[in-house]
């Protein structure tokens, strides 16, 4: 029995491949194998002999089977190692190309502005870009002869012959949205109105279309002091710099009274603009307390309600925040520009996660 064991374990250890192992298995523990033949002899043995030989044969069979299984696994491992040795790849090769999409700075900054004002309870109002001259001018206290009309470089829509209505305009600001929203929703009201606006001007710093965001807050006792706080909070959040100061300067807009132009604190260091530090000032925004006539045009009683309004250029604050030099390039769709100044799709600005990376 020990001979048998030694013989087969030796053969198993020496087997070169799975086929040889299988041959050994059949010869040793197969149905007609040597161990099976020995089992058959058990019948002719005495009960005493059977009690010792039987278990011994079973143990031998188990031992051979597990030796074969172990050898099989070892052979498999060796074969895998051999295969893997031949499967070497140059992993420095480039991958299959995937496109990287981008979000335009105008969209990104609009979302940033929206996130900040949403936190202050301002919702987003929108309106048509072609509008009547009433919504764009008259309702905003800019009557037909007002010099501001001529100064706004308005685009007019052509009128068909026989159509004697005043021509519609491409909105010169998003203020008509303020009127439309006041009409629809009344007071109290807190909205921002972002979107494209149009003026017939094209040079180094002007494009015939650009983007504005205006804000409007109407309530019983809102004051210019609230406006200043709101804007300072906004600028600090937007530029991600603590405690940005603003300076209000008296100015004039037909739709607000009093009116102020607003500067933000900045400095120039080695030709680089730094917002929120130093003692320089840069004009970024026009604002004021909504003119009673404008409230009236929006169907809101100026004896009962008051509020502030402001407006600034989205493209402009995008340029300031992200150091984009040329306004005209915003609308040129140059792939190099879109990729360089654009934002990743997953970089959605939030207040809890931060506006920018």
């Amino acid at each position, binding site marked *: 029995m020990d001979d048998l064991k030694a013989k087969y374990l030796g053969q198993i250890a020496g087997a070169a491949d799975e086929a040889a192992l299988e041959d050994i298995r059949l010869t040793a523990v197969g149905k007609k194998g040597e161990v099976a033949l020995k089992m058959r002899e058990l019948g002719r043995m005495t009960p005493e002999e059977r009690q010792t030989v039987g278990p011994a044969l079973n143990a031998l069979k188990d031992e051979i089977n597990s030796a074969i299984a172990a050898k099989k696994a070892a052979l498999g491992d060796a074969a895998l190692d051999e295969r893997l040795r031949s499967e070497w790849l140059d992993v420095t090769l480039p991958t299959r190309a995937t496109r990287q*999409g981008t979000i335009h700075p105008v969209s990104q900054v609009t979302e940033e502005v929206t996130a900040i004002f949403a936190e202050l309870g301002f919702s987003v109002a929108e309106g048509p870009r072609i509008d009547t001259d009433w919504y764009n001018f008259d309702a905003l206290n800019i009557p037909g002869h007002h010099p501001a009309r001529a100064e706004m470089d308005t685009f007019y829509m052509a*009128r068909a012959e026989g159509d004697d209505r005043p021509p519609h305009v491409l909105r010169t600001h998003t203020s008509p949205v303020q009127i439309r929203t006041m009409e629809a929703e009344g007071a109290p009201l807190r909205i921002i109105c972002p979107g494209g606006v149009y003026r017939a001007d094209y040079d180094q710093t002007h494009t015939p279309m650009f983007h504005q965001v205006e804000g409007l807050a109407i309530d019983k006792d809102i004051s210019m002091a609230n406006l200043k*706080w709101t804007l300072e909070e906004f600028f600090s959040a937007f530029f991600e710099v603590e405690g940005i100061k603003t300076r209000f300067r008296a100015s004039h807009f037909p739709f607000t009274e*009093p009116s102020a132009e607003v500067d933000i604190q900045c400095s120039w260091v080695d030709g680089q603009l730094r917002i929120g530090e130093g003692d320089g000032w840069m004009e970024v925004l026009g604002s004021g307390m909504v003119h009673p006539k404008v409230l009236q045009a929006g169907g809101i009683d100026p004896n009962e309600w008051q509020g502030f309004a402001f407006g600034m250029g989205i493209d402009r604050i995008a340029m300031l925040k992200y150091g984009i030099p040329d306004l005209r390039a915003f609308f040129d*769709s140059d792939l190099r520009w879109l990729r360089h100044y654009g934002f990743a799709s997953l970089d959605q600005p939030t207040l809890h996660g931060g506006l920018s990376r």
Partner: protein
Amino acid sequence: MKFTLSWLKEHLDTTASIDEITYALTDLGLEVEGVEDRGAKLADFTLGYVQSAEKHPDADRLQICQVDTDEGVQQIICGAPNARQGITVVVAKPGVYVPGIDTTIGVGKIRGVESFGMMASERELELSEEHDGIIELPSGNVGDRFIDWLAENDPAKVDPVIEIAITPNRPDALGVRGIARDLAARGLGTLKQRDVPAVEGQFPCPISVSIDEDTLDQCPVFYGRVIRGVKNGPSPAWLQDKLRAIGLRPISFLVDVTNFFTYDRNRPLHVFDADKVAGNSLRIHRAKGGETLMGLDDKEYTFSEGMTLISDAEKVESIAGVMGGAESGCSMDTVNVFVEAAYFDPVRTAYTGRALKINSDARYRFERGIDPEWTPYAIEHATQMILDIAGGEASEVVVAGKVPDYSRAYKLDAARVQSLVGMTISESEQRKTLTALGFRLEGDMAHVPSWRPDVQGEADLVEEVARIASLTKLEGRPLPRLTAGVPKPVLSPMQRREAIARRACAALGYNECVSYSFIDQPSAALFGGGTDDTRLENPISADMSHMRPSLLPALLQAAARNQARGFPDMALFEVGPVFTGGEPGDQHLQISGLLTGSTGPKDVHGASRPVDVFDVKADIEAVLSAIGAPAKVQINRNGADWFHPGRHGQICLGPKKVLGVFGEIHPRVLAAMDMKGPAMGFTIWPAEVPLPRKAGSTRPALNVSALQAVERDFAFVVDADVDALTLVNAAMGADKALIDDVRVFDEFIGGALGEGKKSLALTVRMQPSDKTLKDADIEAVSAKVIDKVTKASGGVLRG
């Protein structure tokens, strides 16, 4: 609006520095745009003394001068007739830049004799047009800086010029006195008394004036008088200096007088040569239409009905409030002058000026509104100045119409001022401010001064008080929340959808563009627009003449530009409005994408391939899914003709509800737009995608079966133009409970199948829910699938 510091000080008694003044101006709403330090360019010129002068040996007109300077005695050759021994001169040493001749002086030889500098004339220093000789100074020491001498002896020549931006509501600040009044109200000095007594007329005015009855609202009042026997000529130096400093060209004294008051008092005047007024009468009337006049700018103007004109007995002589006529204007030879001071209606003046395209100082002021009550004083001021300088004898004043009464008063509500501004300004301070600005307070009523046409209500009083008090002092105060607690979401479902679509496109690898809303007519026409409905009346160029009917043309143009820059592969998208007409309601939001070139640059994996229709189909499906469109849609053909007729599909819910369209752009469109194709595009109308009906956030329960799913493959031979979707829908319908999914996994066209035939292979996945499928069950479902598909497609099971 420009003025010099010394001009300001003629109206304002102040010790404030230039910095204090400019800071206050900006803070008051008179924004300083620049301060020109005119002395800066003269900083290097010094005084010299001509010790001797002798004739140049080789030139009759040149003198060889020995000039004592701060660097010792220098030899300077000079051609000026007044160059002579014993005068104090202004010297430009070698290396000094001379602005009037745009030259830097060097050491040179003039006709063989060396010269070490130059002695300057006034014109060479841009101080005046004077160039008859070099400057001779009556005082000064050798080596002194010329600007220091000027500051001491002739400050008007070098004092700073301040330029401010004037907002349309402040016509009063278009005169130096108005600016001075603001500064005085702020506390930067006191306003000087500048009134002159009326000039007694010596004889009746020989020219009569009348205003037509129907013209009185356009010209309520007209004052005039003749001054005879004047001597016109160049203005005195002080007046020329003033005008030149603010960028005006002195013309002749009589004309300069009108310009002076235009800027000094925001009071345009006009002077006629009285001898050229036919019939000794002037009549202010409405144009009939068609009259013409040669203006002072030597251009001929033709008038339309209703414009305000001033005519003599024969013809039109002046465009009221806008521009005088060339013929009746004053010349150097004028001896009898008729001075006009009138009030013209702002609206009418603006209209006339705009229609005639004349931008004059007079129009600019009349259309913003001058002080009507100062009209009678204006004529006296002008008369006095003319008499003082040009002599002559003044007639009595002739008046037509009467000074319009615009007097009005508004209630000053001191509490409301504080409530609006959010600053503590006492009532007495508020009253003091208004009084300083010329308001007259009676109780709580503030009577508006005649020079402030902009003040039209209580809110304007608030503005006046606030700006004089200085908004710089404003302290921020928190804006209370509308409601306590966690802020509510603010975006509408459509706004959210727009934002998601944008990020979905970017996630798919598209670069977002923002294009102009207007494009050229031919491109608009290729995409169903370009009609007169969407035409701009005044486009900035022919490239931007029509509102875009679609986002695709601008994306195609952008693609063509990028191709030209050497970038053939790209994915561009835009989210924005398009315009189907010229009314406010004709605006629709679109999302469009454009793919062209290859999926990427060629690569080692051979993965790069030209983009095709199924790329944009995948992308439009992904974006539609992201914005919540239902998965089950129909795909129709017969889309817009800017797509390839056989290679596009409209994604629809029902025959009329089109959510989007995708396909290959028509090659003819690409050719017309100079773009190398092929190009694939898609457009989504996000507003067409139905909003979800359910309100809650709970999802339906997940039903998963523990039983194994079975897949069976089928191949059908159908006509080549049968849609795969027809087969898929038929197979899905064979057993709605059991069939979970049907996928097309192979398409084979022609070959052994014969012309016009194709084979489509489907995998049908069956998911039992209550018992394991037996062969018999599978056979039964398979038979139903074959039956449904062959009936729906007209095809046969492939054997």
